[in-house]
């Protein structure tokens, strides 16, 4: 049996006696979009950070394609094939869109300490191809510092895809975007994931986005998994409805 | 109240001032390039420059030297030797000065002296004290006017050896001057009086003395006498804390340079009494030469002369004497030859000192005496003139200390 791209087993994390994440296990397969949802304080962010290396779990394991990556530095995890986007976009504001992607490509090629090469003379084609995929090729020459927010999100996506990751971790990918843009971005993500067989794990507040694009949904409440399954099953789950009662609309 | 420099205000045409090698230098004028740390230590150098200008004007008013006027171009190095070196280059190459002079801080003096050595041009160092200037780093083109660290230490050791004290402590600013003063004092005193012991030494950072702690540390060692090398603001703070804490009670203090008005005046009515010091008793020194100088200076600047004033005036006298000897010929080698062994009158009005041929150190002396309070200000009393020639090491020793060429 081929192991899933990402598998987390029995994650525990507490902060000063407060159990933030308790016995969370999850698995994402290639080409699959798994949404991690839950009300505020449910442990989504903690769970996310346990997987991406920002935090180290008290107990439990995180495996990437069967390899144990628990507690590795984010930098190492990236090298093993994990791309990330952030809730508040993080790009290099003083570099151009093209250079943002080129930087990721150069880092992947192990050339971060190359002092002799000249970036302006590098072949832009690979980076342009990535930008093409997210629809940002026309804006390749603009500085990131001046882009619209939705465009920044797409640049981030291109950067996250630069080293051909097996797994994409997206923290609130549509936060701060206009509703129309949200759907477009998630549709783009889903298409890219399926084309390249990338596993995607994302957290999200917008239930429209979640139920419209996720293949499976995992619902957390007070650090525990209370439901997991395809959107239709989760939508009908009584505990999920109870958790979200009054707090959030479940379509 | 800021005395003004002869300014060369036509400056902002910068390229012009960089280039244009001294089109304005008339052959009839003898030009002296004077470099000093005016903005870094104005309190010491303004009186010096005033007296220098006074002396220069006297010479020019009398028709110059063999018909040639002298003109001094002053440069401020801000206490940075690298700036002094640049000024030296500018003065020699652009202003076409005939000789370099000046210097108060030892390191600046050494830096300029090295330029003089390399360019084979004369440098008359007026005030730097470092022994290295004419000994370890001595050379044909450097002459020094003021009595050196060694000489002033030797003058004080002579007095210190007469004291009954056996337990000594030292306090000195932590840099070359302070360290070598302490080294000489210890060495010479131990030679003169083998049974002395040094029970504590303090080396506060220059200009940053933590006076309370330093005084307490010295008191804790219970010395019978203390040799002090701190000066300026450090000295003031040291004296305040020391007198409040009773450090000086029942102890003999021997102190380098403290009798100079530059250091005594700021202490006002808190000037310590009974310290054995080197210095300059300008109030009581009544040799005919000094009376004339003091009165002229006071009339002109409405303040009394400092030691710097005396040295500034003497420097110009040295240059005048030298040029008279060469018949106003400014060839460097001739000027050097003229200076070697040359005697010159001083504003002190004591016996004329000479520039020793062996090491180019002048035998100008200093006054050794005790401090006292008179009408709310510190003065020197019971002083005597210590002739510099009596406080220099033997010729063999000098030959050992100074590279012989």
């Amino acid at each position, binding site marked *: 049996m081929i192991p899933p791209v990402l598998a987390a087993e029995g994650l525990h994390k507490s902060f000063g006696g407060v159990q933030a994440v308790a016995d969370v296990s999850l698995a994402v397969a290639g080409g699959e979009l798994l949404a991690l949802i839950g009300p505020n304080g449910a442990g989504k962010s903690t769970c996310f950070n346990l997987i991406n290396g920002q935090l180290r779990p008290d107990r439990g394991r995180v495996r990437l394609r069967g390899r144990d990556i628990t507690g590795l530095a984010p*930098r190492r995890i*990236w090298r093993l094939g994990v791309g990330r986007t*952030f809730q508040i976009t*993080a*790009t*290099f*504001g*003083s570099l*151009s869109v093209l*250079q943002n992607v*080129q*930087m*990721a490509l*150069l*880092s992947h090629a192990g050339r*971060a*300490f190359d002092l002799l090469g*000249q*970036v*302006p003379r590098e072949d832009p084609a690979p980076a342009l191809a990535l930008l093409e995929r997210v629809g940002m090729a026309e804006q390749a020459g603009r*500085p990131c510092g001046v882009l619209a927010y939705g465009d920044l999100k797409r640049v981030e996506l291109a*950067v996250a895809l630069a080293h051909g990751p097996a797994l994409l971790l997206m923290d609130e990918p549509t936060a701060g975007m206009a509703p129309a843009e949200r759907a477009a971005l998630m549709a783009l993500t889903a298409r890219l994931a399926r084309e390249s067989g990338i596993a995607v794990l994302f957290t999200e507040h917008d239930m429209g986005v979640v139920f419209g694009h996720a293949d499976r949904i995992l619902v957390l409440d007070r650090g525990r998994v209370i439901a997991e399954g395809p959107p239709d099953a989760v939508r009908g789950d009584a505990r999920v409805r109870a958790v979200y009662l009054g707090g959030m609309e479940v379509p | 109240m*800021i005395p003004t420099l002869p*300014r060369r205000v036509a400056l902002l045409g*910068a390229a012009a001032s960089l280039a244009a*090698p001294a089109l304005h230098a008339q052959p009839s004028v003898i030009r002296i390039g004077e470099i000093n740390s005016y*903005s870094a230590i*104005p*309190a010491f150098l303004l009186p010096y420059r005033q007296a220098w200008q006074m002396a220069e004007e006297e010479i020019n008013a009398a028709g110059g030297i063999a018909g040639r006027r002298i003109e001094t171009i002053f440069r*401020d190095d*801000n206490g940075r030797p*690298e700036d002094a070196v*640049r*000024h030296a*280059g*500018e003065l020699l*190459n652009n202003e076409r000065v005939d000789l370099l002079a000046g210097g108060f801080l*030892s*390191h600046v003096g*050494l*830096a300029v002296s*090295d*330029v003089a050595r390399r360019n084979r041009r004369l440098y008359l160092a007026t005030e730097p004290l470092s022994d290295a200037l004419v000994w370890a780093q001595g050379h044909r083109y450097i002459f020094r006017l003021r009595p050196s660290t060694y000489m002033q230490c030797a003058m004080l050791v002579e007095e210190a050896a007469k004291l009954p004290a056996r337990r000594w402590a030292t306090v000195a600013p*932590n*840099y070359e001057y302070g360290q070598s003063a302490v080294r000489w004092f210890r060495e010479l005193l131990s030679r003169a009086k083998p049974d002395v012991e040094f029970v504590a*030494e*303090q080396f*506060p*950072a220059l200009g*940053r003395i933590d006076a309370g*702690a330093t005084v*307490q540390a010295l*008191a*804790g060692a219970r010395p019978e006498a203390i040799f002090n090398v701190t000066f300026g603001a450090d000295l*003031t703070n040291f004296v305040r804390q020391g007198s*409040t*804490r*009773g450090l000086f009670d029942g102890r003999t203090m021997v102190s380098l340079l403290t009798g100079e008005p530059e250091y005594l*005046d700021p202490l006002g009515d*808190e000037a310590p009494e009974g310290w054995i010091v080197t210095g300059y008793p300008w109030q009581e020194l009544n040799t005919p030469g000094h009376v004339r100088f003091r009165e002229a200076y006071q009339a002109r600047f409405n303040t009394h002369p400092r030691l710097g004033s005396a040295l500034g005036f003497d420097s110009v006298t040295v240059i005048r004497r030298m040029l008279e000897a060469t018949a106003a010929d400014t060839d460097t080698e001739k000027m050097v030859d003229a200076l070697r062994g040359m005697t010159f009158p001083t504003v002190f009005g004591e016996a004329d000192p000479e520039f020793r041929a062996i090491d180019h150190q002048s035998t100008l002396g200093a006054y050794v005496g005790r401090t006292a309070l008179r009408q709310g200000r510190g003065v020197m009393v019971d002083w005597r003139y210590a002739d510099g020639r009596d406080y220099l090491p033997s010729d063999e020793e000098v030959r050992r200390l100074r590279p012989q060429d």
Partner: protein
Amino acid sequence: MWQDLLAQSLSGLATASSLFLVASGLTVIFGVTRIVNFAHGSLYMLGAYLAWTLVGALPRGHLGFWGGVLLAVLIVGVIGVLIEVLLLRRIYKSPELFQLLATFGVVLIVQDVALWIWGPQDLLGPRAPGLRGAVDIFGARFPLYDLFLICVGPVVLGLLWLLFHRTRWGTRVRAATADREMVGALGVNQRLLFTTVFFLGAALAGLGGALQLPRESVNLQMDLAIIAEAFVVVVIGGLGSLPGAFLAALLIGQMQAFGILIFPKITLVLVFLVMAVVLILRPYGLLGRPPATAHAAPAIEPPYGPPSRALRVIGLVGLAAALVVPPLMGEFALIVFTEIAIMVLFAASLHFIMGPGGMVSFGHAAYFGMGAYGAALLTAHFAAPMEAGLLAAPLVAGLAGAVFGFFCVRLSGVYAAMLTLAFAQIAWSTAFQWIELTGGDNGILGVWPSDWAAPKLTFYYLALGLCVGATLLLRRSIFSPFGMAMRAQRDSPLRAEAIGLDGFRIRWVAFILAAVAAGIAGGLFAYAKGSVFPSVMAIPRSVDALVMVLLGGVQTVSGPIIGALAFTWAHEQLMRAFEMWRLLLGLLIVALVLFFPQGLAGAAQRLAGRRAP
């Protein structure tokens, strides 16, 4: 024996109190406005001078003395307000370092103004009425006034605590200190808050200065003497933390008092050693907290483009001029041009870590000086030829950069800057006080070029070749993958980490490269001057480098070159021609900060952009 230790400890407490007064103002101002106020020492000095004048003018006795002190404190507070309203208020939005530069301009101005008003001589103030004498404490006589000072520190700390915790104004100050974003939320009140905080901080500096009157002479060196120590105290305590400053002042005071008993010669280096150790162990000081927002939105600079045609032409013309013109201008011009070439490389090396690297160094002179000393020591102790010395210079500097940088690049912002300063001061003190090795302040003489390079013109071409070559290499590497990685980790550490960039190693390598380049400049400087003195790595030289970089503009690649040219030229001209050159230089810096916040190169760029859109 223990009586001596007790007295020593009390002396340390008195020192601590004085230090705390100055440091408290500095830390309060920094906490709210994030301004590193270099002029704080000048306010302290003004406090002492004003107190001297006022106490002397008022009738003798308690009223005259304490009234004079109080008046001086208020006047210094008003001077602080003036500085804030006239200068700093206009540049809060500028990069942090520009504000530092502005306050440095104020330092220069105050120095000459104080000289002009009070004259050059040290002034000795009267002692405090009623506190002249000493008390007997177990056999040691301890000054009454020092006992009084020991009490002043805690009392001021207590009053400040009440002010900050029991008044609405204080609550706002604390909120602003804790969270930068809060300041924006205060809206209209922000101006008033900043101004009043500046009044308080300046008044505390003035109080510190005025209260020294009965202890120390008032002189023109007070400002720079206190500012370094005040910074040390503030940083050790944790920026913005009052209790931290108090604790640090106690620590430094006691270290000094007892340090001189054990190591009488370590006086200069001790405080900086303590600061280095504290920062290595606790990167935000004893009681400091990491800033709430990791990076307060760094100013976004435009991407570096390839040099425009115009810039290329200007560069080539400049280089051609540098090759052809100086030989026609005589020996001295060659000396000056050699120095300018060296300063260009020195500034470019600092810009390399400050601009693309996003690090601040207050101690870049250390590497310049290491290069100079590396070459000079080889000459002095092994009679090595110039070629060996010039080779050793970058090696020694690079080695120092590797060791010091290893610790410095882990920290950020002002803390990193202060650690660079600490290391530079340690290097400087070593050169200054280790006389057997370095000759101390008398320096190392006779560091002259080899015979073939002795003619001024040859040496000029040598220096020009090496400096322009190294500067161009630095410039080129800004466009290399490594250069881009530097900018990447500066723009977004989070994103950089997420694409596998090792921020620490990138900054470390950049730091070493900058040190190597500064070392080349330092080595050339040694042979150009023929001698090396500790001043090559003293604070003023680090400040010179900072001024050059900021003058030219941090955010442009050509900035340091233009800045070095402009500064070296202006400095040389002003110093030669004007007695009050510091005043003029200070005014020039202040004017530049106000009118060219992007630096000269930035301003030129904008002008060119406007003309040819």
